[in-house]
C-alpha cells in the first residue's frame, strides 16, 4: 500500500501541484502579489538567490576554494583593517621585536574581502547559496514526501493507522530538531556526493571547481527531522477531505483507496502543503547552517561553515562571519515572505468553494 502510494506520489507530484492551482487560486495569487510590497520583495530575494546559485561559476570572481595566504583576511571594500604587524629585526646583534601598526586596505579584486586563508568571500557567499538552496529544496522534498505519505494515510484511514503513525510523529516532535539531526548525522556518517558542475563541464566557465559537493547525509537528515510537520498538515487535510461527500461518491462508484487519495485527497490538500513547504525550506536552510556551524556538514562550501570559521576572528575580521550571516538572513527572509504571500493568497477560507456564478 505504502509503496504503491509512493510511486504514484513521485510520478504525479508536478501534475498534482498544477492541478491543485485552480484559476481562482491563480487569481488570488496575482491579486495578493500586486497588493503586497513584501511579497514582491520576497520574490525578488528568492529569485536572486536561485539565480546566484545556478550561475555561481559565472558570477563568482574567484575559485572559492583557492587559498592565498598573502592576501588573507582582507576587509571588504570601503573598510580597512588595523593590525599590528610584528617583525623582528637584527639590531646590533640582538633581535628586536618591532610592533608596528599597519592599515590593511581592501583589495578591489575581493570586493567582500577574504577569509583567514585568503579565499574570496564573495565567491564563497555565491557558492554557499548552492549548498543552502540544494539542501533546502531537496531536504524539503524528502520531508514532504515522507510526511505527506504518512499524513495522508493517517488522515484517510483514521483509527488505528492514524493512532500509530501520528503518535510516532509526536515522539519525533518531542526531540529538539538540532539534537536529533546531530544524532542522525552521527549515525549515518558524513556522506558527500560530488556532482559535476554543468557550467564548468560544458566549458562555459573555467578555473572554477569542476564539481559541487552535495552533503548527502545532511539532506537526508533534515528531511527526516522535518517530515513531521508535513505529516500533521497532510493528516488534518486528509481527515477533513475524506469525510467530504465527493470522496464518498468516489467510493460508491468503486474507486480504490489509492485512486481516491491520488485523485481527490492529495489535490485538495496541495495548497496548505505548498505553503508549509515554503516555510520549511527556510527552516531547513537554517538547520543546515546550524549543522555546518557545528561541523556536521559534508561540505566546506557552506554559509554555516564560514560563520563557524569566522568565529575565531570576530574581533579582528568581523566580515568572515557576517557576510555569510547576511546571506542566510536575506535568503530566509525572502523565502518566508514568499511563504506569507502564498498563505495569504491561498488561505483556505478564500480558496475552493464559495459562491460565484
Amino acid at each position: 500500500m505504502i509503496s504503491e502510494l509512493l510511486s504514484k506520489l513521485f510520478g504525479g507530484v508536478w501534475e498534482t501541484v498544477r492541478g491543485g492551482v485552480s484559476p481562482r487560486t491563480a487569481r488570488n495569487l496575482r491579486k495578493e502579489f500586486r497588493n503586497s510590497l513584501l511579497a514582491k520583495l520576497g520574490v525578488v530575494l528568492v529569485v536572486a538567490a536561485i539565480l546566484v546559485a545556478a550561475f555561481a561559476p559565472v558570477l563568482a570572481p574567484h575559485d572559492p576554494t583557492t587559498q592565498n595566504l598573502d592576501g588573507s583576511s582582507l576587509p571588504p571594500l570601503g573598510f580597512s583593517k588595523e593590525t599590528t604587524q610584528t617583525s623582528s629585526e637584527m639590531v646590533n646583534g640582538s633581535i628586536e621585536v618591532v610592533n608596528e601598526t599597519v592599515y590593511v586596505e581592501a583589495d578591489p579584486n575581493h570586493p567582500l574581502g577574504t577569509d583567514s586563508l585568503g579565499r574570496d568571500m564573495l565567491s564563497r557567499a555565491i557558492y554557499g547559496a548552492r549548498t543552502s538552496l540544494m539542501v533546502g529544496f531537496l531536504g524539503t522534498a524528502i520531508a514532504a514526501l515522507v510526511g505527506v505519505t504518512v499524513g495522508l494515510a493517517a488522515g484517510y484511514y483514521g483509527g488505528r493507522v492514524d493512532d500509530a503513525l501520528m503518535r510516532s510523529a509526536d515522539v519525533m516532535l518531542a526531540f529538539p530538531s538540532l539534537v536529533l539531526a546531530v544524532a542522525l548525522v552521527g549515525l549515518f556518517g558524513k556522506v558527500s556526493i560530488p556532482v559535476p558542475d554543468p557550467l564548468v563541464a560544458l566549458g562555459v566557465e573555467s578555473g572554477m571547481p569542476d564539481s559541487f559537493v552535495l552533503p548527502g547525509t545532511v539532506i537526508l537528515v533534515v528531511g527526516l527531522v522535518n517530515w513531521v510537520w508535513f505529516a500533521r498538515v497532510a493528516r488534518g487535510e486528509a481527515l477533513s477531505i475524506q469525510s467530504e461527500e465527493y470522496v464518498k461518491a468516489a467510493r460508491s462508484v468503486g474507486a480504490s483507496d489509492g485512486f481516491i487519495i491520488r485523485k481527490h485527497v492529495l489535490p485538495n490538500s496541495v495548497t496548505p502543503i505548498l505553503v508549509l513547504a515554503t516555510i520549511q525550506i527556510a527552516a531547513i536552510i537554517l538547520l543546515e547552517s546550524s549543522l555546518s556551524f557545528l561541523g556536521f556538514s559534508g561540505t566546506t562550501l557552506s554559509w554555516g561553515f564560514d560563520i563557524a570559521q569566522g568565529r575565531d576572528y570576530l574581533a579582528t575580521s568581523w566580515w568572515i562571519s557576517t557576510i555569510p550571516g547576511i546571506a542566510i538572513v536575506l535568503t530566509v527572509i525572502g523565502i518566508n515572505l514568499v511563504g506569507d504571500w502564498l498563505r495569504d493568497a491561498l488561505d483556505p477560507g478564500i480558496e475552493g468553494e464559495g459562491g460565484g456564478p
Partner: protein
Amino acid sequence: MSGDETSHARDASPAISDADEDARNLLRVRDLSTRFFTEEGQVNAVESVDFDVRDGEVFGIVGESGSGKSVTALSIGDLVESPGRVTSGEVWYRNADLAEEIDDPEAVDGDFVDVRQVPENVRRSLRGPSFSMIFQDPMSSLNPSLTVGEQIAEAVEVQRRARANPRSTRSRTQGYGLADMLASTVLPSRSYVSEESRERAIELLEQVGIPDPADRADEYPHQFSGGMLQRAMIAQALAGEPDLLIADEPTTALDVTIQAQILDLLRDLQDETGMSIVMITHNLGVIARMCDRVGVMYAGEIVERGQLADVFDDPVHPYTQGLLGSIPDLDEPASRLQPIEGNVPDLYDHEMGDRCYFADRCPYAMEECLSHPPEFDTETGKPVDPKTDPGEHGARCVLANHEFRPEDALPEEYFAVESEDSSGSDREAAETEEVNTDD
C-alpha cells in the same frame, strides 16, 4: 409589559392629523437599497424596497436564497457589514421618547426616527426597546464560553442601565471600566451584571419555555439542544422588551417538530407582549402559519405584497404563482410539480439590466417586460407608489394591469440566446485566466 408600553406610547404621542395610518405603523421602510461591493462587481442585494409593519402584526418576507430577504432584515436591523452598505433609503421606527430628544428635523417625523439619519449612539439605543433580532443559527450567535444565563442577563443589564438613564443616549456600558471588570473577577458584587438582571434572565428563560430555567441558566450553549438554543436566543432578544422582533429564518435549522414548538412560542409571546414580528423565511408553510401580511421578494425587490389570503389564494405575480406551484402538497399530492424554469439571478449590477428581473424565467414574458414594471394595485390595476400609497395587495407585474397577450409574448429562446452569449464570454474569460496560470 411590552404591550402596555406600546399602548402607552400610542396614547402619549400627540396624534398628527393625517397620520392615522402612521399611528398604526411601527416601522416604515422607504426606498431601501443595499449593495455589496465585491471583487466580481456590485451586487444589488436589496433594490428600492418599501414596506410597513403595523402594530401587533406578523409581516412575512418570503423568497429564495439570493432574493435579498436576509439582507433586508440586516438592513432594517442596522447590521449590514462590509463589503455591504445600505446605499439609500429610510428606515423609520416609531419611538416617541427618542423622537422628542433628537433635534435634527430631518431624522424625525412625528414619533418616528430614521435609523439611517441619526448618529451611531442613538441608533444603538433603538436596539432593544424598538427592535431586536434573532437568527437562523443560534449556536454561532451565542458565546460558547459564557453560560446562557449570563449572556441573557447581560442583555437585560444593558437595557436596564439604559432605562435608568434615559436622557443619555451614550454607550450603556459607560461607567464600567477595565478596573471594574478586573474587580468583578474577585468580587462578584462588582460584576457588570446585577443580581436583578440575573433574576430577570431566569424569568425570560421561563417565558420562552425552558424547563428548570434556574438550573439551565448556568449551563453553556453546547449543553443546549438546537431548539433550546433558539429559545434562549429569543429570550435574549426579549430582554429589551422590543416593539418589533426581526426573525431571520428562525426555524430553518430545526427539525419540523421543534420548528412547530418555536412557531408556537413566537405566537404565544406575540399574544402576550403585543409586539410585531418581521418573519423572514423561505418556507411558505411557516409564512402561512404565522403571518398576517406578506411580501414576496425576488432579485432584491418585493414583487408582490398583501394580506396573506390575497397573496396565497389569489397570486398575481407569476413568480408567486410559480413558488406556490413548485412545492409538493402534503395533503393532496399532485402527479407532477410545476417548477419555475431557470435559476435565481446573481444580482450583479452589470447583469441586471432594465427589464423585469423575472422575465427570463417567466412563462408570460412580453415585449413590455423588457422595461422595468412599477408596482400595480391588483384591485384597480393602476400603478401605485408604494412610498406614499401602499395598496392592500400590490404586484410588480404588468399582469396586474392587463391580461397576458400572447401576440406580444417574447420568443421562447429570447433569453436563452442572451444567457448563452454571456456564459460563452464567461468561459473565455476563465480560459484566459487559465492560460495565464500556465506561464
